[in-house]
């Protein structure tokens, strides 16, 4: 009997979803609000709200309605929540997910709902749009490997750091982001002394810190969110003094604005990513201003995080796509899919368009963490690489021959490193 009452309750909960009218388009925001990237996820939601607010919640002549589906960065939860969005809340478009392995799960899931559209949030695993890509999965942000472009070359040629040990997150995004750094680093003749891997969501890094070699020029840290803060804390407590190189989520505003002293270890650390706080481009400055004005200071980050920018750019692409087809999602959303594939969308990061795998190409910024007079930290842009493609400027065959990102890929020697 309990079961029946529960089912009745479930059905009752379902009713509002079924009542969606024709002149609204429902968008499900799939975003991690628990786990290591909770702060970034919250910023993602804020940025989708911002993007929609800027167009008065209208796109293609239709009203946009959103539903938030919270996940915990695991692929199983992401798939379950995506199913809920499509089947229960009857959304037309999913905007998300946030984390790398979730993205791969959504690539597979999106193939089972070919008449819907999944537009990525900020997940950055290479495989999502590289291996067996799904025709209705679109990614308007750069993937983790692209984010690493330029950094390797910068640390070898500008900093003169040629011997580097690495500590990276032991999952798809960690491998991908590391690969982007390592390809540039090895091509510039660098030497990867030791590659260490830490599980996502770790709290104890003592073992890894103890294993770090002393005779290196710098240590590459490819972790993010709470993991980054925990690592820095423990690294300082262990007396670590080495120079650091940051992966793309290591010196993100979610880390730079965390509480405590741990983040100070990052001062002077070069990182790369597709966001530079002090990017002088007017469209970026306008975006940051809009972000800061849209939310009270205690309800946002001082400047949008990489996660937030990802959701913002992908939301912009969605809006532009809907405008292009005038909100017409009939016929299994075929027109919408075609429009997205061909879209040239104006974003705070410049114009972005997709390649044949529905993956964006664009600019990557190399930045260095610096301390502001008031003690806060921010990223200062030091170099910029334009038009970074999915294959990092290699031919597709050469890129494929390197192997998929993993603990042992890329082979540094094969790329000209040591």
């Amino acid at each position, binding site marked *: *009997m*309990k*079961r*029946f009452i*529960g*089912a009745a*309750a*479930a*059905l009752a*909960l*379902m009713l509002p979803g079924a009542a969606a009218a024709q002149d609204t388009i429902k968008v499900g925001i799939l975003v991690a*609000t*628990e786990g290591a990237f*909770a702060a970034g*996820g*919250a910023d993602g939601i804020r940025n989708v709200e911002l993007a929609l607010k800027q167009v008065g919640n209208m796109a293609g002549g239709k009203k946009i309605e959103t539903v*938030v*589906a*919270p996940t*915990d960065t*695991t*692929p*199983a939860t992401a*798939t*379950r929540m995506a*199913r*809920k969005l499509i*089947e*229960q809340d009857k959304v037309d478009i999913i905007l998300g997910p946030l984390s790398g*392995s979730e993205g*791969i*799960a959504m690539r*597979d899931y999106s193939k089972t709902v070919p008449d819907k559209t999944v537009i990525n949030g900020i997940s950055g695993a290479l495989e999502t749009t590289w291996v067996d890509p799904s025709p209705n999965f679109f990614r308007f942000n750069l993937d983790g490997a692209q984010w690493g472009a330029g950094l390797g070359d910068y640390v070898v040629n500008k900093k003169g750091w040629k011997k580097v040990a690495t500590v990276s997150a*032991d*999952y*798809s995004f960690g491998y991908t982001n590391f690969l982007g750094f390592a390809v540039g680093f090895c091509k510039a003749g660098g030497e990867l002394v030791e590659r260490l891997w830490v*599980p*996502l969501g770790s709290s104890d890094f003592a073992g890894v810190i103890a294993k770090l070699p002393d005779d290196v020029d710098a240590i590459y840290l490819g972790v993010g969110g709470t993991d980054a803060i925990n690592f820095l804390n423990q690294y300082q407590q262990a007396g670590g003094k080495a120079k650091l190189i940051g992966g793309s989520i290591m010196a993100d505003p979610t880390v730079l604005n965390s509480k405590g002293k741990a983040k100070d270890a990052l001062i002077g650390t070069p990182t790369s990513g597709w966001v530079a706080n002090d990017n002088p481009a007017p469209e970026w400055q306008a975006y940051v201003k809009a972000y800061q004005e849209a939310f009270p200071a205690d309800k946002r980050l001082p400047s949008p995080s990489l996660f937030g920018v990802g959701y913002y750019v992908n939301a912009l692409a969605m809006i532009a796509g809907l405008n292009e087809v005038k909100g017409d999602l009939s016929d299994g959303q075929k027109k919408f899919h075609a429009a997205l594939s061909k879209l040239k969308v104006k974003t705070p990061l410049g114009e972005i368009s997709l390649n044949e795998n529905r993956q964006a190409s664009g600019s990557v910024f190399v930045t260095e963490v610096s301390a502001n007079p008031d003690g806060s930290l921010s990223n200062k842009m030091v170099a910029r690489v334009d038009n970074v493609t999915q294959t990092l400027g290699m031919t597709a065959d050469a890129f494929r021959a390197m192997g998929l990102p993993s*603990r042992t890929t890329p082979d540094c020697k094969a790329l000209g490193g040591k």
Partner: protein
Amino acid sequence: MADVLPRSEPGRLIVLERIPPAAWVLGVLLLAMPAFASNFVLYQIFGWSFILGMIALSLMVLAGYGGMVSLIQMTVAALAGYVVAILGTSGVPQISLGWPWWLHIPLAIVIAMLFGTLVGALAVRTEGIYTIMITLAIAAAFFYFTRQNYGIFNGYTGFNNVIPPRWFDIDWRQSVPFYYLTLACATLSYLAVVWIGRTPFGLALQGVRDNPRRMSALGFSVTAHRILAYTFASVIAAFGGILLVWQNAQVVPGTAGIPQVIDILVIAVVGGLRRPIGPFIGAFIYAILSVFSSDILHAIGMSGERFKLVVGLGFLAVVGFSPDGVLGLWDRYQARRETNRDALLGGRR
């Protein structure tokens, strides 16, 4: 335990007569569910409830009949899922062997059963909190091992695209077939547990739970009964694990992460550990809360970020009001309504 005590010579017809009307209603309702429930409710709410219910049921066998709280059940289930992914087909062809279903499914059950038995053999020599600690330690070790091992378990990424075989040319991952598949498995497991509770083995197991020294003096091997209970429970958990992998189409270390391991205990405790139906009730509540908690938060005007808070508060409420779960609430309600019944045991007959 009133349900499972032996009664006057149970002939076949008498057994049928003894099925209470509520069970008939529930049975018909569940069979007819696809007529009025949406695909999502069938697949994600009921399918998931039946699967989690089966895994929690295996804990109920150990805790309710055997007095042993084991935290290894989710791990046993995940191991069965891993074996299906490794020996069968998956999206990781470098590792998966692609053996046919009639080979890899029985092997998965057997391997999970052996693993469960082995853990049981280690754990049964301890009591109470030590059993919990030993099983939790093994569960944690399994989680970290699968996350670090790339040769067999494919590390953090695990296995995706693990789908059920096409028996009778049906896609079993469609909502309605999957609903009936899980319903059938859950029902069979339920009946198996009810039945085992009435067999001499089950009765002896309950005797061991209540007074091991006396059972030992009567010539029963306490250890053997307990280990055998683990073996039996592992089989149920293994079936649940295989269904879980098919439902998600993937198995990853997080399938049997520490939170998931604890969740099974929570499900069993919330539902009620004293009768086999309890875990299914707990699983149903868990599934509803997990999926809809963010909607509940939105409905009362809060942001959906803290969705796990609702899940936690829901469970605290149930356990706070009734130490023996939802079943206990129901039993107490019954006992109060008809005061001539045994208020202590609160049996329904």
